[in-house]
């Protein structure tokens, strides 16, 4: 995968990315931004839950979990992409 514009839900654990924009219906978009996922901030993808969803990220020094549906609303530029885990 080439570094470039993609959404947070597509990143493998271990990746690092910068938030470009947040979309979606207003209340959810507001909450994502309020939790610190603003454009420009750096996000580390920590892991997925054992059943594959939700996703856990580190943003502004704390741990946040969000469903893949919500992560898909966050466009990011990948800074470091971890290889897909070998199943």
């Amino acid at each position: 995968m080439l570094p470039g514009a993609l959404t947070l839900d597509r990143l493998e654990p271990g990746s690092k990315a910068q938030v470009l924009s947040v979309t979606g219906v207003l209340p959810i978009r507001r909450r994502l931004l309020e939790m610190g996922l603003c454009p420009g901030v750096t996000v580390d993808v920590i892991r997925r839950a054992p059943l594959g969803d939700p996703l856990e990220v580190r943003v502004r020094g704390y741990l946040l979990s969000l469903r893949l549906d919500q992560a898909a609303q966050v466009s990011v530029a990948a800074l470091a992409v971890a290889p897909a885990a070998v199943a």
Partner: protein
Amino acid sequence: MTSAPAAAPSAIRTIALGGNPNCGKTTLFNALTGLRQKVANYPGITVDKKTGRCTLPDGHVINVLDLPGTYSLVANSPDEQVAMEVLRGLRPDTPAPDVIVAVVDASNLARNLYLVSQLIELRRPMVVALNMSDIANRRGQPVDAVALARELGVPVIPVVGHRGDGVDALKSALTQATVPALPTWLLPEAIATAITTVGNALPALPHAERERFARRLLAQETAADLAAARADPAVAAALANAAADPATVMQADIEARYHWIDAIVARVVQPGAFKPGTTLTDRVDAVLVHPVLGLGVFGLIMATLFVTLFLVADPLMGMCEAAVSWLGELVTGSMDGGTLKSLLADGVFAGVGGVVVFVPQIALLFLFLAILEDSGYLARAAFLMDRLLSKVGLHGRSFIPMLSSFACAIPGIMATRTIESRNERLATILVAPFMSCSARLPVYGLLIGAFFGAAMFAGTPYEPYIWLIQGGIMLACYVLGILAAVVTAYGCKLFLGKGAVTPFILELPTYKLPQPGEVVRQMWSNTAKFLTKAGTIIFCLSIVLWAMAYFPRLPNEKILEVTNRHNTTPVVIPADATPERETEIRNARASEIDSAVAGAQLEYSISGRIGHVIEPVIAPLGSDWKIGGGLIAALAAREVFVSNLSVVYSVGNVEDDQTPLDEAIRADTYDNGKPVWTPMVAVSLLVWFVLAMQCISTTAIVRRETGGWSWPLFQLVYMNVVAYGAALITFQVGSRIFGG
């Protein structure tokens, strides 16, 4: 920066603690108020209102209000709504605080300062309590409180809530609370223009207020203080004229705040050698949310909880019951028979017993919940289970309430408060009573024991496998309840949700060692809530059901008739009987007559008559009036079914072992000689008990938690219709296949 003058000490009457969830606000509240606190409800909603008293160094006593944790003053849940409304002074029941204490987690400064950026705009005297500075220091990222105070323009007091460090300094600082200066937010040109346009349409407001108000209007906030302005045609015109996209304004506003925050954080936090991913929390998480180990540990924790709720609570529940009945015996033992004695013994004390019997289980459950919540594991449990539960329209946080409901739906439903999304919380409340609770166990035990036990299979090839058959039927009851819950939850997702996406955006807090004092306090306050709310209802209902079983009294001639029927043969005393043996034989006859009279009395009473009235309705399920009377009585609590049958079948004292009852029901026949009870009747009743809502206490709690009668009534009708339908199909189909 200029600051408004400090509040005069005598002017402070109420302070409010505001802060993010997990910032240690409640610990600080406890440290400030000690034991002088009380928990009530905000009128009309189910959010706890926690208030306490605190003595300032000058001897002045003030009220301290602990607000629900919130990430923002734009509310997403009823809890956040309350916090926002109290802080904005919008609640008539709660005066706006004289001083706001902003509790800030030093180890998570940036996100915590977001709320502070909004609190600043409330124009009230403020103090910042910089909590968890010990964690920040340990991470090598200490926060410079003096520098932060300079940046914010308000006193900043480092505290460690659970050790009480800094609490005295915080109390002294309250009198120096200042109204912080307003920061200037850097907004894009177009948005700043739009804000000015709308601000100009608000001439009634002080100049300084206009911009903030305009910004909130443009971002489509829904707080009550904006409604009047929005209704003003001039404002509406200005809003249309400004033509700003609400989402763009909202985002620009949040970005501007984080821009301001980032600048402050850069100046007040020492960029230490801290490497993210190396903290204790990270190491613990490597196990607790590990793809394989995580689920294993989760299963282990939940199994422990489940087993504890049954095994540890069970003897305690027995002790509670014994204590109440001992007390009842003490009070009524010396009384002569009569209505008052019966009211006290079978109404009042049985009612009290019915309430306290739940206490050990509920207290234990809340103890577990408090430990899981305080340690930070509850959020991980939600993280682990969300995938599974979101499939059927529930939430990761629904898991604990559902599991708790296997013990008792009441604490389970009370525990749904941790679910922020309304639809998912409602769905969880609606399906929780389908979980087979411990009150159903005595009924399952009686029916399975009587019809699938030794008496049934003795001498057949199945005899060695009785335990397997019985266990299998028991398991099937649990599975049937779970299936009903899953199907119902899925229905809720389709009809309630109407396609709305409910988000799961959950902070995974830093792990902490739970504070014993706080855990016990939480357990007690929740148990007390049960005792006062559900307890009152259960108690009152017990009295009503007692009256229904007691009145009208059997006329004397009928008592005589029953007595004579049981006295047709003379009492035979063998010639060689000792005097003791003779008394024994006479007593046996007397107690046989007593039981028969009690049974006749019950049939004659209101509940017995209702049993007869509903007989046509329950006949297709294979049940007769005696079972019907039991079902009516079981409305108070399901296990009452068993004791009610004991009375009807005149098997005397229920406290004796239950063998006589299962023999009695097997032996009961209709007038035509056909047995009343068959295995199919038992199975049909089991299906009914698994699915039916027969617990007024749960209905009362649902009313309280949903804030109205419509959902509890819907649930009552829905569950009972489903239960009736399923029991009907079971009996009709089953008796055709297996021949009754």
